[in-house]
Protein backbone atom coordinates (compact mmCIF):
# COMPACT_ATOMS: atom_id res chain seq x y z
CA UNK A 1 0.00 0.00 0.00
CA UNK A 2 1.34 3.42 -0.90
CA UNK A 3 2.55 5.73 1.83
CA UNK A 4 1.41 8.99 0.28
CA UNK A 5 -1.37 10.36 -1.93
CA UNK A 6 1.34 11.43 -4.38
CA UNK A 7 2.38 7.82 -4.81
CA UNK A 8 -1.22 6.80 -5.49
CA UNK A 9 -1.49 9.59 -8.08
CA UNK A 10 1.75 8.43 -9.72
CA UNK A 11 0.47 4.86 -9.97
CA UNK A 12 -2.99 5.73 -11.28
CA UNK A 13 -1.77 8.21 -13.92
CA UNK A 14 0.74 5.58 -15.09
CA UNK A 15 -2.30 3.36 -15.78
CA UNK A 16 -3.58 6.02 -18.21
CA UNK A 17 -0.20 6.31 -19.91
CA UNK A 18 0.08 2.54 -20.20
CA UNK A 19 -3.45 2.43 -21.65
CA UNK A 20 -2.10 4.38 -24.62
CA UNK A 21 -3.83 7.66 -23.78
CA UNK A 22 -2.89 10.64 -25.97
CA UNK A 23 -4.57 13.15 -23.67
CA UNK A 24 -4.69 12.93 -19.91
CA UNK A 25 -6.12 15.42 -17.44
CA UNK A 26 -5.11 15.23 -13.81
CA UNK A 27 -6.88 17.49 -11.32
CA UNK A 28 -6.05 17.68 -7.63
CA UNK A 29 -8.42 19.72 -5.46
CA UNK A 30 -8.00 20.39 -1.75
CA UNK A 31 -10.83 22.36 -0.18
CA UNK A 32 -9.89 21.84 3.45
CA UNK A 33 -12.55 19.18 3.93
CA UNK A 34 -11.78 16.74 1.13
CA UNK A 35 -8.82 15.91 -1.09
CA UNK A 36 -10.09 14.98 -4.56
CA UNK A 37 -8.18 13.52 -7.48
CA UNK A 38 -9.68 13.23 -10.96
CA UNK A 39 -7.95 11.54 -13.88
CA UNK A 40 -9.51 11.57 -17.34
CA UNK A 41 -7.88 9.87 -20.29
CA UNK A 42 -8.65 8.90 -23.88
CA UNK A 43 -6.82 5.59 -23.65
CA UNK A 44 -8.11 2.22 -24.75
CA UNK A 45 -10.74 2.04 -22.00
CA UNK A 46 -12.37 -1.08 -20.62
CA UNK A 47 -15.45 -3.08 -21.53
CA UNK A 48 -18.09 -3.87 -18.93
CA UNK A 49 -16.71 -7.33 -18.19
CA UNK A 50 -13.24 -5.91 -17.44
CA UNK A 51 -14.72 -3.04 -15.47
CA UNK A 52 -16.53 -5.53 -13.25
CA UNK A 53 -13.27 -7.33 -12.46
CA UNK A 54 -10.90 -4.45 -11.72
CA UNK A 55 -11.86 -4.43 -8.04
CA UNK A 56 -10.76 -8.04 -7.70
CA UNK A 57 -7.20 -8.05 -6.33
CA UNK A 58 -6.60 -11.39 -8.06
CA UNK A 59 -7.27 -9.95 -11.50
CA UNK A 60 -4.85 -8.07 -13.70
CA UNK A 61 -5.13 -7.20 -17.34
CA UNK A 62 -3.80 -10.12 -19.42
CA UNK A 63 -0.40 -9.29 -20.89
CA UNK A 64 0.26 -6.30 -18.66
CA UNK A 65 2.71 -8.15 -16.44
CA UNK A 66 4.54 -11.21 -17.70
CA UNK A 67 4.25 -13.45 -14.67
CA UNK A 68 1.96 -11.60 -12.32
CA UNK A 69 -1.54 -12.71 -11.49
CA UNK A 70 -2.64 -9.96 -9.11
CA UNK A 71 -3.66 -6.37 -9.68
CA UNK A 72 -3.65 -4.56 -6.40
CA UNK A 73 -3.71 -0.90 -7.43
CA UNK A 74 -7.43 -0.17 -7.61
CA UNK A 75 -8.57 -2.54 -4.81
CA UNK A 76 -6.05 -1.00 -2.42
CA UNK A 77 -6.97 2.51 -3.53
CA UNK A 78 -10.64 1.79 -2.78
CA UNK A 79 -9.72 0.40 0.62
CA UNK A 80 -7.69 3.47 1.60
CA UNK A 81 -10.17 6.01 0.18
CA UNK A 82 -13.24 4.45 1.79
CA UNK A 83 -11.51 3.95 5.12
CA UNK A 84 -10.96 7.71 5.34
CA UNK A 85 -14.55 8.64 4.47
CA UNK A 86 -13.81 9.26 0.80
CA UNK A 87 -14.50 7.02 -2.17
CA UNK A 88 -13.62 5.93 -5.68
CA UNK A 89 -15.55 6.26 -8.92
CA UNK A 90 -14.55 4.62 -12.17
CA UNK A 91 -16.19 5.09 -15.56
CA UNK A 92 -14.78 3.61 -18.70
CA UNK A 93 -15.77 2.85 -22.25
CA UNK A 94 -13.79 0.54 -24.49
CA UNK A 95 -12.04 2.51 -27.20
CA UNK A 96 -12.95 5.89 -25.71
CA UNK A 97 -11.13 6.22 -22.40
CA UNK A 98 -11.45 6.14 -18.65
CA UNK A 99 -12.44 8.59 -15.92
CA UNK A 100 -11.16 7.76 -12.46
CA UNK A 101 -11.94 9.92 -9.44
CA UNK A 102 -11.08 9.33 -5.82
CA UNK A 103 -11.20 11.28 -2.61
CA UNK A 104 -10.00 11.25 0.96
CA UNK A 105 -11.35 13.16 3.96
CA UNK A 106 -8.65 15.72 4.71
CA UNK A 107 -8.79 15.37 8.49
CA UNK A 108 -9.15 11.60 8.78
CA UNK A 109 -6.38 9.91 10.73
CA UNK A 110 -6.07 7.22 8.04
CA UNK A 111 -5.63 9.69 5.17
CA UNK A 112 -2.07 9.34 3.88
CA UNK A 113 0.09 12.47 3.77
CA UNK A 114 0.13 14.33 0.47
CA UNK A 115 3.81 13.65 -0.24
CA UNK A 116 5.80 15.33 -2.98
CA UNK A 117 3.34 16.53 -5.62
CA UNK A 118 5.92 18.50 -7.63
CA UNK A 119 8.23 15.48 -7.79
CA UNK A 120 5.31 13.26 -8.79
CA UNK A 121 4.22 15.50 -11.65
CA UNK A 122 7.84 15.77 -12.78
CA UNK A 123 8.22 12.00 -13.04
CA UNK A 124 4.88 11.70 -14.87
CA UNK A 125 5.94 14.38 -17.35
CA UNK A 126 9.27 12.54 -17.83
CA UNK A 127 7.50 9.32 -18.84
CA UNK A 128 8.35 8.55 -22.46
CA UNK A 129 5.81 8.65 -25.26
CA UNK A 130 3.75 11.09 -27.26
CA UNK A 131 1.01 12.09 -24.86
CA UNK A 132 -0.29 15.32 -23.41
CA UNK A 133 -0.81 15.56 -19.68
CA UNK A 134 -2.46 18.59 -18.14
CA UNK A 135 -2.11 18.99 -14.38
CA UNK A 136 -4.34 21.29 -12.37
CA UNK A 137 -3.94 21.85 -8.64
CA UNK A 138 -6.44 23.92 -6.65
CA UNK A 139 -5.94 24.62 -2.96
CA UNK A 140 -7.21 27.26 -0.53
CA UNK A 141 -8.66 29.52 -3.25
CA UNK A 142 -5.51 29.43 -5.40
CA UNK A 143 -4.81 27.23 -8.38
CA UNK A 144 -2.45 26.64 -11.24
CA UNK A 145 -2.47 24.57 -14.40
CA UNK A 146 0.46 23.32 -16.44
CA UNK A 147 0.69 21.01 -19.41
CA UNK A 148 3.51 18.66 -20.27
CA UNK A 149 3.99 20.24 -23.70
CA UNK A 150 4.26 23.84 -22.47
CA UNK A 151 6.66 22.89 -19.69
CA UNK A 152 8.79 20.86 -22.12
CA UNK A 153 8.87 23.85 -24.46
CA UNK A 154 9.90 26.26 -21.71
CA UNK A 155 12.43 23.95 -19.99
CA UNK A 156 13.92 22.71 -23.26
CA UNK A 157 13.48 19.03 -22.52
CA UNK A 158 11.85 16.80 -19.95
CA UNK A 159 14.37 14.02 -20.56
CA UNK A 160 17.72 15.64 -19.95
CA UNK A 161 18.72 16.50 -16.42
CA UNK A 162 19.15 20.23 -17.06
CA UNK A 163 15.62 20.55 -18.43
CA UNK A 164 14.23 18.35 -15.66
CA UNK A 165 15.93 20.48 -13.01
CA UNK A 166 14.35 23.64 -14.45
CA UNK A 167 10.96 21.93 -14.66
CA UNK A 168 11.32 20.77 -11.06
CA UNK A 169 12.09 24.32 -9.96
CA UNK A 170 9.01 25.59 -11.81
CA UNK A 171 6.68 22.97 -10.32
CA UNK A 172 8.00 23.52 -6.79
CA UNK A 173 7.51 27.29 -7.14
CA UNK A 174 3.87 26.74 -8.25
CA UNK A 175 3.24 24.43 -5.30
CA UNK A 176 4.75 26.91 -2.84
CA UNK A 177 2.62 29.72 -4.24
CA UNK A 178 -0.64 27.93 -3.39
CA UNK A 179 -2.30 28.99 -0.13
CA UNK A 180 -2.88 26.39 2.59
CA UNK A 181 -6.12 24.44 2.27
Amino acid at each position, binding site marked *: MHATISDVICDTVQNSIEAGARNIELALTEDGRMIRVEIKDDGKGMDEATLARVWDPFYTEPGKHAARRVGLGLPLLRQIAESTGGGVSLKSEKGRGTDLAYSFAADNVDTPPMGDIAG*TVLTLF*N*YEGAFELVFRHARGGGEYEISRSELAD*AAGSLQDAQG*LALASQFLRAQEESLPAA
Partner: protein
Amino acid sequence: MAKLTLDDLRKMRDKTQQAMSMRDSSKKDIQVIVGMGTCGIAAGAKDTFGAIVDAIAEKGLTNVLVRQTGCMGLCHSEPTVEVVAPDMPAVIYGNVDAAVAREIVDTHIVGRKLLDGHICDRPSIDIITNK
Protein backbone atom coordinates in the same frame (compact mmCIF):
# COMPACT_ATOMS: atom_id res chain seq x y z
CA MET B 1 9.30 32.31 -3.39
CA ALA B 2 7.79 34.56 -6.06
CA LYS B 3 5.68 32.61 -8.51
CA LEU B 4 7.85 31.47 -11.39
CA THR B 5 6.34 31.91 -14.85
CA LEU B 6 7.07 29.97 -18.02
CA ASP B 7 8.78 33.07 -19.43
CA ASP B 8 11.05 33.16 -16.36
CA LEU B 9 11.82 29.52 -17.03
CA ARG B 10 12.73 30.23 -20.67
CA LYS B 11 15.12 32.98 -19.56
CA MET B 12 16.71 30.63 -17.02
CA ARG B 13 17.06 27.97 -19.72
CA ASP B 14 18.72 30.40 -22.13
CA LYS B 15 21.15 31.50 -19.40
CA THR B 16 21.98 27.88 -18.54
CA GLN B 17 22.42 26.97 -22.20
CA GLN B 18 24.81 29.88 -22.71
CA ALA B 19 26.91 28.68 -19.78
CA MET B 20 26.80 25.12 -21.06
CA SER B 21 27.75 26.06 -24.61
CA MET B 22 31.21 26.89 -23.32
CA ARG B 23 31.63 23.21 -22.53
CA ASP B 24 31.43 20.17 -24.74
CA SER B 25 27.72 19.43 -24.75
CA SER B 26 27.47 17.65 -28.06
CA LYS B 27 25.78 14.32 -27.44
CA LYS B 28 23.86 12.67 -24.69
CA ASP B 29 25.70 9.37 -24.39
CA ILE B 30 24.86 8.40 -20.81
CA GLN B 31 21.47 7.13 -19.72
CA VAL B 32 20.26 6.85 -16.16
CA ILE B 33 17.09 4.77 -15.93
CA VAL B 34 15.07 4.76 -12.72
CA GLY B 35 12.72 1.87 -11.96
CA MET B 36 9.36 3.52 -11.42
CA GLY B 37 7.02 0.54 -11.13
CA THR B 38 4.65 0.27 -8.18
CA CYS B 39 7.43 -1.42 -6.17
CA GLY B 40 9.88 1.38 -7.00
CA ILE B 41 7.39 4.13 -6.17
CA ALA B 42 6.53 2.47 -2.85
CA ALA B 43 10.25 2.27 -1.99
CA GLY B 44 10.89 5.94 -2.72
CA ALA B 45 11.93 6.01 -6.39
CA LYS B 46 10.55 9.53 -6.84
CA ASP B 47 13.06 10.86 -4.28
CA THR B 48 15.78 8.91 -6.07
CA PHE B 49 14.72 10.37 -9.42
CA GLY B 50 14.76 13.90 -7.99
CA ALA B 51 18.16 13.44 -6.36
CA ILE B 52 19.67 12.18 -9.63
CA VAL B 53 18.25 15.10 -11.59
CA ASP B 54 19.50 17.62 -9.02
CA ALA B 55 22.98 16.06 -8.75
CA ILE B 56 23.47 15.94 -12.52
CA ALA B 57 22.19 19.50 -12.94
CA GLU B 58 24.40 20.82 -10.10
CA LYS B 59 27.45 19.31 -11.75
CA GLY B 60 26.49 20.87 -15.07
CA LEU B 61 26.57 17.54 -16.90
CA THR B 62 24.90 17.95 -20.27
CA ASN B 63 25.42 14.48 -21.72
CA VAL B 64 23.01 12.58 -19.47
CA LEU B 65 19.44 11.50 -20.21
CA VAL B 66 17.28 10.61 -17.24
CA ARG B 67 14.58 8.09 -18.08
CA GLN B 68 12.33 5.72 -16.24
CA THR B 69 11.08 2.22 -16.65
CA GLY B 70 8.69 -0.14 -14.91
CA CYS B 71 9.56 -2.98 -12.58
CA MET B 72 12.90 -4.57 -13.49
CA GLY B 73 12.16 -7.71 -11.48
CA LEU B 74 14.32 -6.62 -8.55
CA CYS B 75 11.51 -5.57 -6.21
CA HIS B 76 13.54 -6.72 -3.19
CA SER B 77 16.14 -4.06 -3.95
CA GLU B 78 14.03 -1.06 -4.93
CA PRO B 79 14.61 1.71 -5.72
CA THR B 80 16.69 0.47 -8.64
CA VAL B 81 18.70 2.56 -11.08
CA GLU B 82 20.38 1.39 -14.27
CA VAL B 83 23.31 3.36 -15.63
CA VAL B 84 24.34 2.92 -19.26
CA ALA B 85 27.57 4.73 -20.12
CA PRO B 86 29.96 4.25 -23.05
CA ASP B 87 32.93 1.92 -22.45
CA MET B 88 31.46 0.77 -19.15
CA PRO B 89 29.24 -2.22 -18.37
CA ALA B 90 25.54 -1.43 -18.00
CA VAL B 91 24.87 -1.77 -14.30
CA ILE B 92 21.71 -1.95 -12.23
CA TYR B 93 22.15 -0.52 -8.76
CA GLY B 94 19.76 -1.48 -5.94
CA ASN B 95 18.58 0.16 -2.73
CA VAL B 96 19.27 3.56 -4.23
CA ASP B 97 18.03 6.24 -1.89
CA ALA B 98 18.78 9.93 -2.48
CA ALA B 99 22.25 9.71 -0.89
CA VAL B 100 23.25 6.66 -2.94
CA ALA B 101 21.87 8.36 -6.05
CA ARG B 102 24.29 11.24 -5.50
CA GLU B 103 27.13 8.74 -4.99
CA ILE B 104 26.25 7.08 -8.30
CA VAL B 105 26.47 10.42 -10.06
CA ASP B 106 29.82 11.21 -8.38
CA THR B 107 31.42 7.79 -8.74
CA HIS B 108 29.94 6.17 -11.85
CA ILE B 109 29.03 9.09 -14.07
CA VAL B 110 31.71 11.60 -13.13
CA GLY B 111 34.43 9.28 -11.77
CA ARG B 112 33.72 6.49 -14.29
CA LYS B 113 34.11 3.79 -11.63
CA LEU B 114 31.47 1.33 -10.46
CA LEU B 115 29.98 2.09 -7.07
CA ASP B 116 30.59 -0.82 -4.75
CA GLY B 117 27.94 -2.13 -2.36
CA HIS B 118 24.83 -1.46 -4.46
CA ILE B 119 25.38 -3.42 -7.66
CA CYS B 120 22.54 -5.83 -8.43
CA ASP B 121 23.53 -6.40 -12.06
CA ARG B 122 20.84 -7.48 -14.49
CA PRO B 123 18.43 -10.32 -13.80
CA SER B 124 20.09 -13.46 -15.15
CA ILE B 125 18.90 -15.20 -18.30
CA ASP B 126 17.17 -18.58 -17.97
CA ILE B 127 19.69 -20.99 -19.50
CA ILE B 128 16.96 -23.44 -20.56
CA THR B 129 14.66 -21.03 -22.40
CA ASN B 130 17.39 -18.52 -23.15
CA LYS B 131 15.01 -15.71 -22.18
